[in-house]
């Protein structure tokens, strides 16, 4: 019998973040928009950081953004990432404004330029969780 593959950390899905993960499973990238003032933010928040309204919705975004920075992990802080070493993590500024951290795929480190365009792709972890990731814009 093969030893079980160590699990990767899973997202914490709660009342605030559930909409994001439901959208991701349907291959839609979304950020939270304030129903009252229109402010866009990510990660989700129980109230709007701008106007404090509790009325917040997850709205789809273009999935296009800019590579703001990137790093390559040579150390595994979780056993589940050990087989992936070294792996790439990127910081993306979405066209709509919010920043998010993700992985860059379909690219080697030498292809990466801060400021380059990137676009979202989706990778399913399992039936429940799909992770938005990014690749250089086509």
């Amino acid at each position, binding site marked *: 019998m093969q030893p079980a593959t160590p699990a990767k*950390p899973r997202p914490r899905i709660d009342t605030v973040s559930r909409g994001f993960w439901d959208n991701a499973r349907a291959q839609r990238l979304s950020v939270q928009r304030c129903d009252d003032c229109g402010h866009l933010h990510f990660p989700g928040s129980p109230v709007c950081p701008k106007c404090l309204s509790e009325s917040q919705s997850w709205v789809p975004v273009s999935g296009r953004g800019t590579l703001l920075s990137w*790093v390559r992990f*040579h150390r595994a802080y979780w056993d589940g990432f050990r087989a992936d070493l070294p792996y790439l993590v990127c910081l993306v500024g979405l066209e709509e404004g919010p920043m998010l951290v993700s992985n860059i795929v379909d690219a080697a*480190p030498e292809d990466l330029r801060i400021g380059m365009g990137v676009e979202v792709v989706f990778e399913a972890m399992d039936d429940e969780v799909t992770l938005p990731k990014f690749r250089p814009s086509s």
Partner: protein
Amino acid sequence: MTDYRHLKDRIAIVGVGNTAYGNFPDIDDFGLGARAFRYAVEDCGLDKNRIDGLLTCRVPHYARMGEILGLNPRWTIQLPPHGRMSGMAIVEAAAALEAGLCDYAALIYANIGRSRRVNYGGDESPGVWDPWGFTSPGAAHAMMFQRHRTLYGTTTRQLAEVSVAFRYHAGLNPNAVMKQPITIDDHESARFITEPLRLLDYCLINDGAVCIIMTTTERARDLRKQPVLISGIGAREAFTTASISNFDINFWYDEMQDVAAQAYGMAGVGTADVDALMCYDNFSPTVLFSLEGLGFCKQGEAGSFVEGGTLKLGGKLPTNTDGGHLSNSYMQGWALNVEAVRQVRGECGERQVKDAEVVQYCGATPCSRSIIYTPG
């Protein structure tokens, strides 16, 4: 008078103490904290029972600490175990002393991260980005340095100047953990942890404790040592993108500019007056960001500023003369404040900066702080 600048020279550090630094599995945080406390009490010659203020940081429980030390203060605060808390703690204690909430405050920090194998990442510090494998303060600083070198052409050899200078200082500090000299080439060939940062860009993880005793300048005159005055303080948080922990897209530049304006303005000094800098160095890039934010050089120019030994003793700006977090001890800013006090007192032996009269502590973090110390 309600302006914070009223605090100028009103509060003094009167006693400092620190344990040995290393790997101590047979003593816990309370034991280390108590030892540092005893050294600090001896340093200032105060009857410990007169201490009526207690601030603990990274010590598991303030009440147990009080029980162990035989203290029943009238002012107590426990701060979370984050490095950024050291500067905050000293500012808060100064405000409490000025307000008369206590007469003598003992600030105690203890860390047993080495012997208990703390990693500062992964499941120890859950975050939003864990599913993508992004974790640890070091990775956040790698993310910032990657941007800095792209925007400004900063090189890893320039970054190495920081680690090399601090290791040189550690060699002059009998209490430092890492004394073996290193070169820029050693830095360049060290293994990557989170690329572009390498092992020698990362702080140590070690056990140890620090205690600082503070009182009003007036009361300080009756104690054993020359008081070291708090002449300037500056503070600004950056919480807008706090979910990306320990990260700021603009290297805390705006916040540190604000901190610098407050601290220098209050103390009535400028960068040219600073005899020694004690700069929070959880990772080497933080030092470059701090130098730019405080105005020692323009934004983007810290790489060239540090070239050629600027930060070494005898250089233009001796920085982290104890070896800092990179080579002396990871006491999360606390030991740097102790070193600032000892430099002002002239107690630093081989690593003493001649005629050190203005010594500045700074930490560029999501809670940036700076404190300017002068002789009383």
